[in-house]
Structure formats: structure tokens, C-alpha cells
């Protein structure tokens, strides 16, 4: 994102408009509103990381806001420390708290994320209202402002010229400090979602199975994004405490959370700049709807409802329709220099039960490096489950899986890529809104390697297309390219030829043969016998979770058990 994006021009114009408006209005009231916009923008920028990027509907961002407010107020009022120390604590304390809850929260099913975070927020509210050191329902009074008076800069003597003294009134100093905070928040948000991290986060969020098979591990991302979100929420709370001079349990209340959520949705889910725009639109609303008095939240409710129905991608998404993202630069394709040797895949006595059903029942076979093995069998015979066990999406009840001699059994799915395993899916999932090259590069060492992988599957000329513009057959090739870009030693494919034309199947067969010749162990599940039999060195046939035949294609094809169970009598003729 180093190049200028035309959308950013719109944001800069909006910022100029906002600054102009505040300068022209210039009164204390306008300054206060503008500061409040900045404060909520900071909290919402943080929230975008968890809600937008990790895709978790957390309802704890308001609690982090409150935690920051209380941390700073307690340190400056009760302990008498200077304001900057208080603000530092307002960042650190919520960031730590967020890091502690990040992993248990991210592990939850999506419908319990909201409940768990709401429970935490509820506990924070109970603590704020009922503990003695937080001042109970009254809260804490006399929180010192960021600056007490106006600041005088100069007069400056530059050589023989004297620049007159500039007096900056206190309201402006607060406003400028807050908006420096906004700028810092935007930079931090950009840093943690920079470059290929964005694509990795999108894959983890929208395509979790693919992410696991590609070896993407969300643990670090979750920790970092939660902590940054908590820190920014806390900073916003701290700034508000010093701005208002008072902290009451209301800062932990649900109203703050709903305001942040509404800003994030209206600004555009996942977009930090959108959060600033959302705050600028939403925070002054209560002033417009003053006749509603305390019930300005009706207005927030209406706006939030309208936004989620009419503009689900928010203002930023709407701007994106007008000013699409620029396609990434296309590097020259480069095969990896460190050529990974092929790795034999050995499966022994694999068993998987689902309740009373034994889907895989003692399956053993091996895929030597440099060969293609075809796995066949009727629907429900256990082929996909076998692939899921090998790639770690399901845990076997018994048996061994070895890749290059290394046991995979106890390894989580995301470790298997490092060991050299990659797979493609029968129904591949893709993150939305990304370019083909970004998707292909998600597990690659760099984009040049991803470009080479796109070239191998014949998608090089589509590198700068959006994934949403690809047809079904192209998506399957992209899934394969994404796996190849991880430079595996063994590759497993689930029905790669389904839905392809005869020409495409021929090209795919050539590609898989080439990969095997280059040393890879290739395991292919497919129903197209005209595709699979000529391609494979060996065929393994499953029936009701058991291997009923294995050997060279010709032998298996004439095996009476295989004909009876799967091929049908016409096939042997």
C-alpha cells in the first residue's frame, strides 16, 4: 500500500473538510465534539482489528475503553502520577487484559464469542459499580486534563527574523493530542495488517479449512490483534477520562460498546480509516438529535439497522466500489532455489469413527516420492475422510501417518505444511475481496514463488484479477496453485478434475505427472477413471472404509471386487 490510492484522496478531502469546519466554528463546543470524534475513532480503529479482521463479534471493546479510563484516572487521581503515565497505563493494562482473553475467546464457536465477551463486560460493569476503589456508582472526580492552560510556542528567533509567539488554547491542545492518537492508531493498525498479513487474516477468517491445510496459524495474529485492539480501546477511554475530568461506571456500560460497534459497521467492517469516517458521522449525531435528549441511542439504533441492511460493507466498502483497490504489482515468477525433496507419504491402520459409523476402518497405503497414487471408491467409502485425517482436519481414532518418516499423528493441521504437506479441496474456500496473486501467495515464501505456481496451473494472466471474477474451474486451479506455492514435498488432491472440460483435464494430468517427475508424492482422489487410471502409478480402492484392492491401475481395474463395489461391469470390458 505504498502507492497512492484514489480512495485515500476522498478521505484526505473529508479530513480537510472536518479540520476546516472545526477551525471555522472554532468555539469550545466544536473542539469538544471534534475531540470526542477522535476518541471514539481510536477505540473503533482498535475494534476493527478484532471484529473486522479476526471476524469475532466481541462485545468487550467497551470494557477495554472503561478499563483504560479507570486505569488512567486511578493512577493520576489516587496515586497522583502525571497524566502521560496514566495514559500509558490506559494502553498497557487493557492490552494485557485483551491478550489474556484472546486465545480462549478465539477458540469459541462464533455464537459464544459474543456471550463470553458480554459476560466479561458485565463483570467489569459490576466491578466498577460496586468496588470501593473505583468510587462505586459515583466514580472518580477531578481527573486532571491533558493540559491545563494554553501553550505558548515562541517567540522564535530564526537568524535575524523573529517569529511572533503562537498561543495555542487548551482546547486545541487536547484536540491535537487526540488526533495524534488517531494518527498513531491508524499507523499501528496498518502495521499489524500490512502486506501479506491482510491476506493471511482474510484466509483465517473466511476460509478456515484452507487456512489450516495451508499451515496458517492464527495464534500470533489473534494475540497481537486482540492486544492492539484492547490497547487502543484503553487509550480512547483514558483520553476521554482526562477530557471530561470524570470517570463513572457509564464508561464500562453497553452504550459505549454499541457506539463503537455502530461506528465500525457504518465505517465499513475491517477498515481503520472507515472507522474514523464512521466516528465523524455518528458522534455528532446526538447533537443533531438533541430533542431526543438521553435517548439519542434510538438514532444510533436506526442508523445501525439501516447500515447493516442497506450498506453491509459500510462507507468504506461503498467507496471501494467507486475507487477499486489497485491490483498488486506482478513479480517475475521464480521457482524456489531451495528445492524441497519429495517426501513419501505412508498411512498405516488408519481408523476414524463418527458416532456409530466407522468411516475409515484400518486403511493402509503408501505414496512413494515421485509417484502418483489414485484413491478411488464409491461416495461415502471414506476417501475424503482419509484426506482429512492426513491433512489434520480430523483426528484419527487409531493408526499412523508418516510424511518423509516423520509421524504426523499428534501434529496440528497447521504444522503439516512445514513438514511438506499440501492439499487441495473438493469445495475450496477463498477469502473475499482479494486479488488472485494475494490468495496464491498466502502460504508462499514470497510473491515470486506464488507467481511461478500460478504459471504452472495456467493462471499467470489472471494474477491481478479479483478472486470474485474467477469461474469455478479457475477457482479449483487457484486452490491448487495456493497449495503448490507452499512448495510441498507431498500433495493430496480431492477431486481436482471434477467439473473440468476434457482439455482442462488433460492439462491437469500433465501437470500432476510433471510434479511427480519433479519428485513429489501425489495422492489424488477422483471419480474420473479416464483421468485417473492413465495418470496413476498405483490405485487404491476403498469400500466402506476398508482397502479392497491396491496395485497398478490395470490390475485394480480388473479386480472383481473393485468392479462389483465401484466400477461396474462395463468398466472392465
Amino acid at each position, binding site marked *: 500500500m505504498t502507492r497512492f490510492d484514489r480512495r485515500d484522496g476522498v478521505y484526505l478531502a473529508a479530513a480537510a473538510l472536518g479540520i476546516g469546519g472545526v477551525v471555522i466554528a472554532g468555539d469550545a463546543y466544536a473542539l469538544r465534539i471534534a475531540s470526542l470524534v477522535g476518541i471514539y475513532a481510536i477505540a473503533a480503529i482498535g475494534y476493527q482489528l478484532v471484529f473486522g479482521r479476526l471476524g469475532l463479534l466481541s462485545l468487550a471493546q467497551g470494557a477495554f475503553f472503561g478499563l483504560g479510563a479507570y486505569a488512567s484516572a486511578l493512577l493520576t487521581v489516587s496515586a497522583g502520577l502525571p497524566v502521560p503515565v496514566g495514559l500509558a497505563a490506559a494502553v498497557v493494562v487493557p492490552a494485557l487484559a485483551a491478550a489474556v482473553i484472546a486465545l480462549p475467546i478465539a477458540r469459541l464457536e462464533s455464537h459464544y464469542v459474543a456471550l463470553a465477551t458480554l459476560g466479561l463486560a458485565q463483570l467489569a460493569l459490576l466491578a466498577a459499580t460496586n468496588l470501593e476503589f473505583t468510587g462505586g456508582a459515583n466514580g472518580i472526580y477531578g481527573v486532571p486534563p491533558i493540559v491545563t492552560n494554553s501553550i505558548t510556542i515562541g517567540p522564535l528567533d530564526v537568524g535575524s527574523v523573529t517569529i511572533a509567539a503562537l498561543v495555542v488554547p487548551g482546547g486545541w491542545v487536547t484536540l491535537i493530542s487526540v488526533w495524534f492518537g488517531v494518527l498513531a492508531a491508524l499507523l499501528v493498525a496498518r502495521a499489524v495488517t500490512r502486506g501479506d498479513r491482510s491476506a493471511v487474516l482474510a484466509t483465517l477468517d473466511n476460509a478456515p479449512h484452507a487456512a489450516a491445510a495451508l499451515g496458517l496459524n492464527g495464534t500470533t495474529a489473534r494475540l497481537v490483534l486482540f492486544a492492539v485492539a484492547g490497547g487502543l480501546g484503553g487509550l480512547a477511554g483514558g483520553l476521554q477520562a482526562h477530557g471530561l475530568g470524570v470517570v463513572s461506571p457509564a464508561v464500562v456500560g453497553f452504550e459505549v460498546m454499541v457506539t463503537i460497534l455502530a461506528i465500525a459497521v457504518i465505517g465499513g467492517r475491517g477498515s481503520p480509516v472507515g472507522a474514523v469516517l464512521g466516528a465523524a458521522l455518528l458522534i455528532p449525531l446526538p447533537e443533531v438529535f438533541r430533542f431526543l435528549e438521553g435517548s439519542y441511542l434510538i438514532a444510533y439504533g436506526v442508523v445501525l439497522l439501516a447500515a447493516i441492511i442497506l450498506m453491509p460493507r459500510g462507507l468504506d466498502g461503498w467507496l471501494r466500489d467507486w475507487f477499486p483497490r489497485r491490483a498488486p504489482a506482478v513479480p517475475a515468477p521464480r521457482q524456489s532455489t531451495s528445492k524441497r525433496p519429495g517426501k513419501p507419504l505412508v498411512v498405516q491402520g488408519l481408523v476414524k469413527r463418527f458416532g456409530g459409523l466407522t468411516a475409515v476402518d484400518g486403511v493402509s497405503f503408501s505414496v512413494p516420492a515421485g509417484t502418483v497414487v489414485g484413491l478411488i471408491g464409491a461416495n461415502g467409502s471414506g476417501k475424503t475422510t482419509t484426506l*482429512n485425517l492426513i491433512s489434520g482436519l480430523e483426528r484419527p481414532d487409531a493408526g499412523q501417518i508418516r510424511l518423509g518418516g516423520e509421524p504426523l499423528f499428534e501434529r496440528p493441521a497447521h504444522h503439516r505444511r512445514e513438514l511438506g504437506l499440501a492439499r487441495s479441496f473438493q469445495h475450496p474456500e477463498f477469502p473475499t475481496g482479494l486479488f488472485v496473486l494475494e490468495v496464491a501467495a498466502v502460504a508462499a515464501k514470497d510473491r515470486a514463488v506464488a507467481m511461478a505456481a500460478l504459471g504452472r496451473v495456467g493462471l499467470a494472466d489472471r494474477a491481478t484479477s479479483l478472486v470474485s471474477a474467477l469461474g469455478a474451474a479457475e477457482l479449483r486451479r487457484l486452490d491448487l496453485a495456493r497449495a503448490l506455492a507452499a512448495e510441498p514435498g507431498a500433495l493430496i488432491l480431492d477431486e481436482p478434475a471434477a467439473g473440468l472440460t476434457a482439455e482442462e483435464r488433460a492439462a491437469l494430468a500433465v501437470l500432476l505427472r510433471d510434479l511427480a517427475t519433479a519428485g513429489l508424492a501425489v495422492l489424488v482422489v477422483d471419480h474420473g477413471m479416464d483421468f485417473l487410471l492413465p495418470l496413476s502409478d498405483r490405485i487404491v480402492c476403498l469400500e466402506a472404509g476398508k482397502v479392497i484392492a491396491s496395485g497398478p491401475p490395470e490390475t485394480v481395474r480388473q479386480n472383481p471386487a473393485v468392479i462389483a463395489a465401484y466400477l461396474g461391469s462395463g468398466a472392465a470390458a
Partner: protein
Amino acid sequence: MIEAAAQLAVNAVALGAVYALVALGFVLVIGAVGAVNFAHGELVMLGGMVAVGVASLLPADLPVPGLLVLPAVLAVMAVAGLFVAGVAYAPLRRAPPTSVFIATIALGLIIQHGVTAGIGPEPRLGPPMIDSGTWHFAGIGLARQQLATIATAVALIVGVHILLQRTRFGRRLRAAAQDSEMARAIGIRVNVTVAVSFALAAALAGAAGLLLSNQYLVTPTDGAMLMLKAYVATVIGGWGRIWGAALGAFAIAVFETLVAAWTSYLVAEALLYVGVLAVLAFRPKGLFGEVEGRRA
């Protein structure tokens, strides 16, 4: 002593029966659309307010005012439920469940603050089901309101049970909840089952609001707390399991009443949240898990 214990027990059962009604509606919507209805607590509050309003239209000296008001509350709230479905679900049928969740958060805000703006933030007293007297059993006095609450809630729960388990429509509703695509494929009109689920959920919420409004009064800010308890009940009873959630809600009310009698309501509430967080930390799928079934 015995009298106090008996009253406490009746109190706990009455609250439990009402919470079960609330959770039943909450989980019906989860089943129908796979999303949390965050405004469900607001519907309970709204039901209480409707009860207060309708009761104020009746002559003051009528017997069994609450029972008279009940059909009106059920009808008005069923319409409110259809409204919720039309506004917060229908336009978002194809959107992810999170969108429905957020839409219901918005709707909850509108209902809560709309009621506050309309009639003010004061708590209001709803009509008693029968009257405010007591019945005496073996020398123990028990409030008629409590017993009538239990009887009404149980009758409604039994009614829902018969509807869901014994009727063709109930089977369709459960089928659509388990697998809406399959249900659609075999000719069940899923839109109808969804609309009825919302209407039924809101009617039950309204009845719960009426039952709570006499003993606990009804305040516009009550909703969030009630919704949270229903939500917690799904952790205990299993996500999307209708009778599990109702039992879970009953357990929560008993726990709350007993702990509050022993210490304070505050401690009971805090312990409830700590408990649910502990459950989720160690059993991320809820206390009894949920139906498995994932295919890559």
C-alpha cells in the same frame, strides 16, 4: 422457618418457570435462523409494558386482571415478533448470522430507548394474575401471584411442547431448524416457519414480561439482563436445543434465588457470569456440547 423455605422454593420455581419461557423463545429463534436475537430481552420488557397498558384500560375492580390481559399480550407481542422478523431478519436472509445479530442489537436499542422516550424511565407495576392475596396450605402462606405465575408458565410451556412435538407444523418447524436447506427441498415453506418462530418467541417473551411485571415491576432497561440469562441458558442446555435451554434457564433462576437469599443478588449475578466464562474456557462448545457434523 419452614414457611420461609417454602416461600423461597416457590419463588425460585416461579422465577425459573418465567426464565424458561424467556429462554424458550430465545432458542426458538436460534433454531429458526441460526442467530441470536439480541432484542429478545427487550421483547420481554415490551410485553410487560403492554400488560401495564392493557390493564390500565380495564375497569379497576375486575377479577383476575392478569389472566384477562394475557391473550391481548400474546396477540400484540406475536405481531411484534413478526415485525422483528420483517425488519431484522427478512432483509438479511442471505447475510451471515452476525448481521442478524447486529440488526437485533440495533432493534433492541430502538425498543428500549423508544419506550423510555415514550413513557419515561420509571418502573411500572403490572397487573397480578389473580390478585395479591395468599393461599394457605397446612399453615404455610404462599402468594397467589407466585402460584398463578407457575401455573401460567407451565401451561404455556406444555402448549409449546404439544405444538412442537405433536403437530405436523411442529415437526416442520423442527425440521427447518435442523436443516433449512433440506427442509426447503422437501417442500417446507421455511419463510413461514421462520415467521411463526419469531411470532411464537415474542408471544412467549411477552407472557414472561406480564408474569414478571407484578412482582418485579417493569423498567425499560430490564431487557439486556433477561436476554443475557437466556443466552447463558444455551451454554448450559446446548446451543439450539430447545428443552435444554429451558431447563438451563430454570436452573439459573433457582441458583440465582438461592444464592441471593444466602448472600446478595449482586454476588449471584457475578457468580453466574464467572461460571459461564469458566464453562466456556474449559468446554468451548458449552456444557453438553452441540451436534457435530463438519465436512471439509
